[in-house]
């Protein structure tokens, strides 16, 4: 498809389980972002890639969170030893360039519930 694609759309994980969330950005987009959106809140920045380089990971809440984009296209957000407070929607977004004012396109999100 032409948009940002995320999988899985829905994931239920038992506390302590590891999860991996995948993002396929729009083809050719240089910038890729991950956001976390708790219920009823606005998205919060997690990490940013420019091609394969992770330029900012200041929003990752703990060392249990890890993101990669090894070939500069598909990205994976991994959460180790999930906890209940990790329950949220994880949004991936991409944009063509890193310039200011550039349009950012969001995927539909991966809904994670930790039980």
């Amino acid at each position, binding site marked *: 498809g032409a948009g940002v694609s995320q999988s899985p759309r829905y994931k239920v994980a038992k506390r302590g389980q590891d999860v991996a969330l995948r993002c396929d950005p729009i083809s050719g987009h240089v910038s890729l972002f991950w*956001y976390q959106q708790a219920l009823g809140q606005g998205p919060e*920045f997690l990490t*940013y890639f*420019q091609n394969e380089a992770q330029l900012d990971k200041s929003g990752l809440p703990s060392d249990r969170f890890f993101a990669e984009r090894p070939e500069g296209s598909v990205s994976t957000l991994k959460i180790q030893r999930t906890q209940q407070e990790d329950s949220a929607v994880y*949004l991936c977004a991409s944009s063509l360039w890193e*310039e*200011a*004012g550039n*349009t950012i396109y969001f995927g539909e999100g991966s809904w994670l519930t930790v039980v």
Partner: protein
Amino acid sequence: TQLLEQSPQFLSIQEGENLTVYCNSSSVFSSLQWYRQEPGEGPVLLVTVVTGGEVKKLKRLTFQFGDARKDSSLHITAAQPGDTGLYLCAGEKVRTGANNLFFGTGTRLTVIP
């Protein structure tokens, strides 16, 4: 911690009424974007304002960027049930090697037929 505060957080109005949503911060942004998010979907960009004092209109929606580029407002005229959704403002900060969007707390609008 979110840099942008939106008000009101929830708004329920009758069809045909006007409304204004506010987005405030103590930080200066290079641009300010407004998004609308439907349940189960990602945010969809409505507009980007870049210049302090800029006003943009999109049909019944009017967006304004504050002179100091710290705040913004969204005004909807004659609201319709199709306007129902979560409205998010997002400020962009440009830094060397990265640009970041900082989202507001969101305003959930319900327009009652």
